[in-house]
C-alpha cells in the first residue's frame, strides 16, 4: 500500500556520540510523494546528518523517522528502507565500487539478488536515463565528476528507488557537471520520482517545489522557494541568495516589475521588456 508520505520525521533529535551539542533539534518534516524538496543550510547546519537519518544510516537519538511507513529504528526493515531511499554522496569518487560503468550500476541489483537478465535490463535503462549508455563498458576512473555523479544516480535507478536523497552532489563538480546532474534530476522529477536535494547553493534549489532551511540543526523555514529565499533572512542563516533573486527583489521593490514575476531570467526579461 503506497504511503502518502515518502518520509515522515517526528520530533527527531540526533547527537553524535561524544558531541556536546545535538546535530539535529526537534525536526518534524513530512515529504510527499513526487516532491522535489530542497534542503538548504550552511556547513554545520545538520543537513548531512538529516540525509543519513532519512536513509537509516543513523538512528535518531530521540523521536522517530519513518520511510514509506517503515520505522528506521527497526533493523528488520533496514533493507526495505535502503531500497526505497537511495543516497547519493558528495564525493563522486568514494561511492563508485565497480571497475566499469555497467558493473557499478549493477552493484545495487546484484546485492538485492535479482536474476542476471533482469539486472542487465535494469542497468541498461538506468544508464539510458542518465545519458551514460555510450560509456557502459568504460572504466569508471575515466569518467568526469559529473559523469560519476550521474552513475551514482543510475545505481539508484537500477534498484528502482522511488526516492533519491542527494547530499551536496554538485559541491565538487565544475559548472558543466552541475548542469548535467540537475538536468537528470529534472527529468527524473518529471517522471514522478521524489527528490531530496541537499545543498548550500541556493540557485540550485530554484527548481525545487519546496525548500526547507536548516540552521543549527533546526528547521527555520519551510515553503515555496521564492517565499523562503528572500535576501534578508538568508544572511542570518549563512546562505547567499543567488544574483537572480537579489535582482528580482530589487526590481520588485522599486516597482519596475510586478511582484508576481517568476524567479527566472526569462520571466525577468519578459517583465522588463514586454514585446509590444
Amino acid at each position: 500500500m503506497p504511503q502518502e508520505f515518502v518520509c515522515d520525521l517526528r520530533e527527531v533529535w540526533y547527537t553524535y556520540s561524544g558531541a556536546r551539542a545535538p546535530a539535529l533539534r526537534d525536526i518534524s518534516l513530512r515529504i510527499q510523494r513526487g516532491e522535489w524538496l530542497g534542503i538548504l543550510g550552511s556547513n554545520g547546519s545538520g543537513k548531512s546528518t538529516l540525509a543519513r537519518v532519512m536513509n537509516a544510516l543513523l538512528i535518531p537519538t530521540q523521536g522517530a523517522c519513518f520511510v514509506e511507513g517503515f520505522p528506521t529504528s527497526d533493523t528488520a526493515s533496514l533493507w526495505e528502507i535502503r531500497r526505497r531511499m537511495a543516497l547519493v554522496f558528495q564525493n563522486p569518487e568514494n561511492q563508485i565500487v565497480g571497475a566499469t560503468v555497467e558493473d557499478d550500476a549493477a552493484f545495487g541489483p546484484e546485492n538485492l539478488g535479482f536474476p542476471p537478465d533482469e539486472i542487465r535490463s535494469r542497468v541498461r535503462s538506468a544508464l539510458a536515463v542518465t545519458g551514460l549508455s555510450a560509456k557502459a563498458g568504460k572504466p569508471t576512473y575515466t569518467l568526469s565528476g559529473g559523469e560519476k555523479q550521474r552513475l551514482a544516480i543510475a545505481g539508484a535507478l537500477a534498484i528502482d528507488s522511488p526516492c533519491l536523497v542527494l547530499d551536496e552532489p554538485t559541491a565538487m563538480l565544475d559548472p558543466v557537471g552541475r548542469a548535467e546532474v540537475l538536468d537528470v534530476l529534472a527529468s527524473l522529477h518529471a517522471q514522478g520520482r521524489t527528490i531530496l536535494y541537499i545543498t548550500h547553493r541556493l540557485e540550485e534549489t530554484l527548481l525545487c517545489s519546496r525548500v526547507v532551511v536548516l540552521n543549527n540543526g533546526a528547521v527555520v523555514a519551510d515553503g515555496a522557494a521564492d517565499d523562503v529565499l528572500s535576501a534578508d533572512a538568508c544572511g542570518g542563516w549563512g546562505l547567499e541568495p543567488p544574483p537572480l533573486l537579489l535582482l528580482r527583489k530589487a526590481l520588485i521593490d522599486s516597482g519596475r516589475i510586478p511582484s508576481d514575476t517568476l524567479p527566472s531570467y526569462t520571466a525577468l526579461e519578459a517583465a522588463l521588456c514586454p514585446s509590444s
Partner: protein
Amino acid sequence: MRFLNHMTFGQYIPTESLIHRLDPRCKILATTLLLTGIFLADHAVVYILWGVALIVLAGASKLPIRMVLGSARPVLILVLFTGLLHLFFTDGTPLVSVGPLVITREGIRLAAAMSFRLVFLVLFASFLTLTTSPMELADGIESLFSPLVRFGFPAHELAMMMTISLRFIPTLLDETDRIMKAQIARGAMLDQGNFFRRLQSFLPVLIPLFVIVFQRAEDLAVAMESRCYKGGSGRTRMNPLCWKNSDSFALLGVALGIVLVECADRNLSWFVTPLL
C-alpha cells in the same frame, strides 16, 4: 603518471579470441596445470615443446608474440641473477675458471634449466592476466574457493577486496602524483639527494595518501551499505560465470598435453641424457 591509465593490472588486453572467451576458472586451473608441467620438465628438448605451446597459445589469443614476451621483461634481472648464481656456484665437473669462480658442466645445465623455467613461468602466468580481466579473475577465484566457505574461508570477501582495490589503483596513482607535486612545490627533494634523503622526503607523501585511503574506505563502506550490500549471501551477478563445453575441452586438452609432454620427457632419456 597518466600513462598507467591505459595499463590495467596484469596488462589485460581486451581482444576477441578463443582464449578470451574461456571461463576464467578454466583458465586459472589450466594455468596451474601448465605451471606444474613446467617444473616437471627435465630435458632441454622439452622446453622447445613448451616454446611451441606458447606460440600456439599466443596465436589462439590473438596477441602479438612480442607483447607476450614483453611481459617477462620485469623479471629478466631476476632470471639473470638466478642464472649467474647457478652458473658459478654449482659443484661438478669443472669446465672453465673465471678468477676464483669455477663454471661447471652441471652449472651450465642448471643455470639454463632454472632460467628457462622462470621465464616460462612468468610467460604462462601472464597469459592468464593478459586474457582475463581483473573482474573475471576475481569472480573466478571466488567461485573456485566457494566450496571452502563452509569452513570459514572468506571467498566472497576476498574477491570483493580484489575488485575494489583494482578499481582504485588508477585513482591512487593520480593522487600520489598530485601529492608528490604538492610537496615538491613546497621544497621537498623527492627527485634529488641520496637514498636515505629521498626516503625521508617520502613521509610527506605517504601520510596524506594513508589519510585519503582510510577516508575512502570509510566513505565506501557507508556507500556500499546504503546500496543494500550485505555480504556475499544472496548476491547474484549480472554476468555470472558459465562453464561451457569449450572450457571442458580446453582444460582436458591442457591436461592431456602435459601428460604427453611428460611421457616424451621420460622417454627422451633413451636418446638424450637428462639435463638434471
